């Protein structure tokens, strides 16, 4: 008897709608676009700074516009989701074994959040 296996094609552009876990993954991936956009904004900031005080003031004014604030808020939300989703999987990628036991995952994740809080505090104190 000859074989005739049937192949089910995976829809290339809509597969992630099939499962909530695929949607969560895509959300994590899409946040990269916001992070990338913010990096571009910083490049523009440097360029404006090089063009002189007036150009830089114009850049700062644009940041304070409603659209500028909205963009920053959107990036903040995306960056928080991006960072926390990666923090939460660090115990899988970097397990720490001490003798005959693994360090609990919560401690590894917690250390990331603690480091994040400390860095944010330093930036806020020195930055303001």
């Amino acid at each position, binding site marked *: *008897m000859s*074989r*005739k*296996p*049937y*192949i*089910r094609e*995976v829809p*290339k552009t809509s*597969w*992630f709608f*099939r*499962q909530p*876990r*695929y949607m969560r*993954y895509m959300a994590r*991936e899409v946040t990269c676009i916001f992070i990338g956009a913010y990096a571009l904004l910083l490049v523009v900031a440097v360029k404006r700074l090089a063009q002189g005080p007036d150009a830089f003031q114009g850049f700062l004014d644009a940041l304070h516009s409603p659209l500028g604030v909205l963009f920053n808020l959107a990036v903040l939300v995306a960056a928080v989701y991006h960072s926390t989703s990666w923090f939460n*999987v660090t*115990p*899988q*990628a*970097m*397990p720490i*074994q001490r*003798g*005959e*036991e*693994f360090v609990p995952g919560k401690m590894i994740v917690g250390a990331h959040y603690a480091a994040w809080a400390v860095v944010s505090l330093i930036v806020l104190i020195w930055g303001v």
Partner: protein
Amino acid sequence: MSERQIQLEVLRYNPETDTEPRFQTYSVPCLNEWVVLDALNYVKDNLDTTLSYRWSCHMAVCGSCGMMINGEPKLACKAFIHEYPDKIRVEPLANFPIERDLVTVVEDFITKFASIKPYLIPKEDKPISAGEYKQSPAELLKYKQYTLCINCMLCYAACPQYGLVPEFLGPAAISMAHRYNQDSRDGGRDQRQEVIASHEGVWECSFVGACSEVCPKHVDPAGALQQVKVASTIDWYKEHLMPWVKK
């Protein structure tokens, strides 16, 4: 014992007569403590002897009865009827070609699994008279969870990357390579790296994490793959920045 009438929608495919799969619904009187495999066995014994599916142990050890149950990769012997609504849809494991009904073609997995040399490759030959290989509990812990893999392929059915790029070596094969690489008695890492550190190897993984979520034995293939990525990256830097350092 309470009984419930379940509508079992099963994807059928007969390669001799069908051009594509179709759903067939069976009405099955299920006892509350039944699993989906019991319902399939009821169909086979009482309603339709032509239904094909794989199973063996009925206790989540053999890894034969993996299938999509309401769209989720599950072992049919571990999917309790009482956790499902009155209508249960059963399909063959996703991402694998269908041989017949719920039976899939698994050669691809078997070839890939064999390619990572899933066995101990001792560092050096040792005569039997030299005694056994000793291993401490700490050394055992490093790889123990990966030994629980039963090759049920649910992780491949859950992995969208494997569905989109069939060349991908996949979660179970790379996890098993990691298992042996982590074993203090093993010296075969260099041989396995050629396969698992390749583009179709671990770098095809984008850490969706679905493999670990569906694993019926609570193995963490996603974690293993990220650890392989870290180790492979360290290898690369050592080779290119510190060529004088021996691996």
